[in-house]
């Protein structure tokens, strides 16, 4: 079995996961440091290597595939530390990135400042040109005008240029001309072009895509080069790929051309792990592995994604920062939503008597009251301490000794304001906090959405890095070929699909000898009713397309999808088929998830913990106290290195042969 290493460098922790050495999947962890490009990579590698009884460089030498994922691109965008970038737009549309598409959350809020555009107005240059919806050149771009713009860019001292002209998707001539002139005049400047990066209708979305992409190029090209150098010097000689926001991987030389796919790439890997483990555990208590909600708890955020019908849900609306007011990537990526709730989130009573948790956080200094470092405000962690869910001695692997009475004080004072005792207040804080506390609150969360079964894989502490072991090389190819159900151009569509197949095949050929074991193509057509402007993805295959009634089959598939999502359909209305796509997947080897070895159970302990307002002398178990095939009924606490799993009454806990925990709601 080929050895594969995946790493996810997050804001706090660096997770590194190894498969192929022995039969187990091994997780290494370290704190992320930002002083060197490789951050905590060596430490995480050493941690994993130690568990495998190998020297880190020896482990690297045995490795065939290294998957790299970093939060660096996302952070640079959010913190505004990307390279100085100019944006070129059609004259008259300088304010594309200022105005975005309008809209915001929280009407009546007049205290939040209007967000600054991703590229400032003084670095946005209007190009005297215009192309019409038909592709006709309404106002030609002269080389003199292009060069005039280039002179202004030169004065602006930027490292990158983003180009997004109106209707470049139907006639790219002007974008091409600008690109050629810039490449010739300013060869050291990185360029991103909208019709190539993201050929979709809607000028703001293309402009936003290229602005983000261009601004990342100098930075991420340098960074990926440094990672490559570092790994080579550390003894690695295998292939190097990076994770993308589509939940797949791409070779460094591909991603360096479109670094925007690095943004939010880590969280997009978590659904791949969710899919792999629920497939592996199918039969051992997990029934339907096609529809999964995947939750991943980090230090400061709670990420949720969805797998439907065995496929992770894809969106074109990925915002970095807040919806409407942050920065839109505009590209298809896995739909991962984040809530900023963590153990440090502070609980308070709002005017009117409502309990609120967050968005303020106590961070790690002074931290929660129970850290005993001077924090006095009650946090999610304090609430868990009050309820007896945390062990004072072994919190964070024993690095912090918890002051439980301090937590009682802080939570108790809050409770007095709303007339609740400390235990009820604490329970309330955990429920309101939602995702902030990992295994401690997962049961109330899933109960609220009507789930009755939870799978916690043994690698839950490094879900994204684990997911990279189950992801494949993924590229999407698109052909815009509009036709309708009323006048279906069957030959044209077949020809468009043939062109897609050619592109996908060419991509596939480049993957020869790179460890790809197979090739899978998923076909999708973006469709909508006449006069609608937002489309739905409808999967299709050769059988559908080659049938004599292909148009009827495609439209009824669309009607059904529209009915399913929106509760209405309009079978008498014309359906428009717009863009035809293939998601080409170069299947990589995926490790098997096999039975985990067992060790001796530790002596059994009990702790007073609160459930439903009652203090219960609750058994505290370790992983090895649980025997596969046997069910333990809640209330029970399972103490793990990274978290505590709280099994409330009426829920049962099982461990599988492979070391996953399965929580099930008892049938009432």
């Amino acid at each position, binding site marked *: 079995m080929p050895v594969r290493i995946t790493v996810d460098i997050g804001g706090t922790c660096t997770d590194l996961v190894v498969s192929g050495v022995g039969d187990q999947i091994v997780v290494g962890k370290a704190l992320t440091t930002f002083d060197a490009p490789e951050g905590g990579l060596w430490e995480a590698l050493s941690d994993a290597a130690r568990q495998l009884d190998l020297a880190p460089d020896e482990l690297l030498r045995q490795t065939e595939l290294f998957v790299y994922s970093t939060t660096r691109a996302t952070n640079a965008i959010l913190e505004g530390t990307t390279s100085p970038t100019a944006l070129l737009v059609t*004259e*008259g*549309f*300088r*304010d594309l990135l*200022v*105005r975005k*598409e*309008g*809209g*915001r*959350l*929280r*009407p*009546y809020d*007049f*205290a*939040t*400042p*209007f967000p600054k555009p991703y590229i*400032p*107005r*003084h670095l946005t240059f209007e190009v005297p040109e215009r192309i*019409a*919806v038909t592709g006709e050149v309404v106002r030609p771009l002269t080389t003199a005008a292009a060069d005039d713009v280039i002179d202004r860019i030169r004065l602006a001292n930027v490292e990158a240029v983003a180009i997004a002209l109106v*209707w470049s998707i139907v006639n790219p001539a002007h974008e091409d001309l600008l690109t050629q002139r810039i490449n010739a005049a300013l060869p050291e400047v990185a360029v991103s072009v909208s019709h190539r990066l993201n050929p979709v*209708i*809607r*000028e703001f979305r293309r402009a936003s895509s290229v602005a983000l992409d261009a601004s990342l190029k100098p930075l991420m090209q340098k960074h990926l080069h440094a990672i490559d150098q570092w790994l080579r010097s550390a003894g690695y000689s295998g292939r190097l790929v990076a994770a993308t926001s589509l939940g797949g991987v791409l070779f460094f030389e591909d991603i360096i051309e479109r670094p925007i796919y690095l943004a939010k790439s880590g969280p997009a890997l978590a659904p791949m792990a969710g899919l792999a483990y629920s497939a592996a555990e199918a039969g051992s208590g997990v029934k339907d592995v096609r529809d999964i909600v995947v939750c991943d708890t980090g230090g400061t955020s709670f990420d949720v994604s969805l797998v439907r019908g065995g496929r992770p849900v894809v969106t074109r609306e990925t915002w970095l920062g807040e919806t409407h007011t942050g920065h839109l990537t505009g590209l298809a990526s896995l739909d991962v939503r984040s809530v900023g709730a963590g153990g440090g989130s502070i609980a308070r*009573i*709002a*005017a*009117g*008597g*409502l*309990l*609120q948790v967050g968005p303020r956080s106590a961070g790690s200094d002074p931290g929660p009251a129970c850290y005993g470092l001077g924090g006095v405000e009650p946090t999610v962690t304090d609430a868990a301490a009050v309820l007896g869910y945390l062990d004072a001695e072994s919190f964070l692997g024993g690095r912090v000794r918890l002051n439980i009475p301090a937590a009682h004080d802080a939570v108790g004072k809050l409770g*007095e*304001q*709303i*007339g609740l005792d400390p235990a009820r207040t604490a*329970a*309330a804080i955990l*429920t*309101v906090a939602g995702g902030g506390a990992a295994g401690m609150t997962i049961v109330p969360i899933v109960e*609220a959405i*009507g789930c009755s079964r939870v799978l916690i894989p043994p690698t839950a502490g490094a879900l994204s890095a684990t997911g990279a072991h189950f992801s494949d090389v993924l590229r999407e190819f698109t052909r815009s070929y509009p036709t309708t159900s009323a006048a279906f151009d069957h030959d044209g569509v077949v020809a468009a699909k043939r062109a897609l197949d050619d592109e996908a095949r060419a991509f596939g050929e480049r993957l020869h000898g790179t460890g790809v074991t197979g090739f899978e193509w998923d076909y999708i057509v973006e469709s909508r*009713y*006449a*006069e*609608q*402007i*937002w489309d739905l993805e409808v999967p299709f295959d050769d059988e559908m397309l080659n049938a004599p009634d292909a148009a009827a089959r495609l439209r009824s598939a669309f009607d059904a999808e*529209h009915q399913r*999502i*929106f*509760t*209405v359909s*309009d079978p008498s*209305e014309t359906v428009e088929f717009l863009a035809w796509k293939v998601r080409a997947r170069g299947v990589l080897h995926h490790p098997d998830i096999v039975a985990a070895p067992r060790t001796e159970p530790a002596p059994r302990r009990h702790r007073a913990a609160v459930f439903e307002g009652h203090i219960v002398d609750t058994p505290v178990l370790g992983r090895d106290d649980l025997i596969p095939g046997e069910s333990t009924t809640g209330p029970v606490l399972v103490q793990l290195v990274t978290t505590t799993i709280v099994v409330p009454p009426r829920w049962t806990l099982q461990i599988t042969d492979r070391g996953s925990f399965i929580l099930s709601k008892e049938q009432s």
Partner: protein
Amino acid sequence: MTETIETLSDAIDFDPVLLPVLAGRFETIVREMTNTLFRTGRSSVLNMARDFSCCIVTADNDLLACAEGLQVHVLGAGMQTESMTELHPELAPGDAYLHNDPFLGNTHTADHTILVPVFYGGRHLFTAAAKAHQGDCGNAEPTTYMAFAEDIYAEGGLNFPCVAIQRDYSDVEDIIRMCRRRIRVPDIWYGDYLATLGAARVGERRIIELVDKYGPETVQQFVTEWLNYSERSMAAAIARLPERQLTASSTHDPIDCAPEGIPITVKLDIKPAEGKIVVDLRDNPDCIPAGFNLSQATATSGAIIGILNAIPEDVPRNSGAFRRIEVELREGCIVGIPPEPMSTSLATTNVLERVINPVQRAFAQLGFGHGLAEGGGACGAGFAVISGVDRRTGTERPYVNQLVVGSNGGPGTPTCDGWVTYCMPDAAMVVYSDSVEVLEQRFPMQVNHIRLLTDSGGAGQFRGAPATEVAFGPTDTDMTVYYFADFAQHPALGVLGGLPGSPVTLRRDNADGTSVDLAPIGDTTLGAGDMVIGAEAGGGGYGDPYLRDPALVLDDVVEGWISVDAAVEVYGVRLHHHEDGQYTVNDDATRILRTRSPR
């Protein structure tokens, strides 16, 4: 304190955990309804601009949840459901009602509302409501804003005083046929109807699931407690204000039947001891024979919006909070209760902004930190209704649609500058903006520019946002453009030394090179190559511009929000212009300028 303001300790008689959880669930349902309508709507005013709103109302006609609904759309939803229960004692599961009657609680005729009563265990518990501005509503002319219609007969739009459009989950075909016959774009209307109905049905489905899970008793108890909690939050916010009577006025530009303009005066009585604010709109002109009269729903909403804008607390927006706001209206008043057959065709825009603006501005009389400046509130070129025939595909396809390509400038506030994407006071910041490419694909038109105008935001310590100017015209066939812009003579005012924003502009540039100014309210028909060019209004400034941080003034100049001249003359900030093109603040000269010419 009176007995209605409970102390916090005995305030909540309901699981304090479930309270915010269920409130969040209802908001989530409204967001799912909203997404359904947005993704499936056919006219661009819905599927791009999102000029529609969804909400959930209780069986007792209390507005419970409205998420990011347009302020003017949702606040009066309870009046509409009240007419539904009164007119339809036969109310049953599977019903859906079409309601666009401004005399029965709707905003104006162009807003079609679908009301779906939600039943559980045979009882009507909630109503899922979705309201959408139509591309066309059958008016006498191809516009959804009939400025000069002297009454509803001249307006001409189809009126549905809460009629059943579905029984047992099936369309009442009579009503569908009526709409298809009298609406200029029948297929688009039907698609929009399906989208609106779908949104309401999604709401129904989700509400039933929610009640299934928590039980009807718990959910009803939640409703009572949540509304009470909201009322307490509002009372607490008002209790922190000083006891004062405030008066402010705002004037709509002159029109034919009101040659002096339409002056609107609002009187506020802040009663912190009672935790209550009374808004008196009665001392205002009578209704006029034109489309400018407010409906009862919009007059009430206007006063409430102004207050919610000025109350910084995080008060939930529902009927519980509104119990603390008393709006006094008069029959026959232009900002009151219009008698039949008065036209209220423009009730969601023009005069409405003249209610919201003075209310939020009046609070600034309480001193720095209170209230807001006025926001721009014009519907000129950027919000015009366009119509014509699209012949690009060889067939004749009529189109009517309101554009949302421009924006008024938002008001300066006590803490920050105005929002560029403000839209207008009654739908502040929640409406989206059209994509130029999607518009050009949908309609035979070309948009030449959408640009923010330098120096158009009212100066202030916190600046009003600049106005957006747009230019567009037809590509081949004739296009009729309807616009109805106020704010040409009475711009958005600043407060506490802040200056007004820029006025509306509107002109037409003809293909032959000539150019004419257009009256801000009217219509014009463009031929190929002709263009309409216009800017909405800039927002008013908050506070003395001489107190604006010079670093912000510098940034404004670099970014082109204000000119170098304005920096000196209006803000008293002198800049160095360096040889490499960079600017810096000339601190000494600025200090001298600001002391020598106090404002």
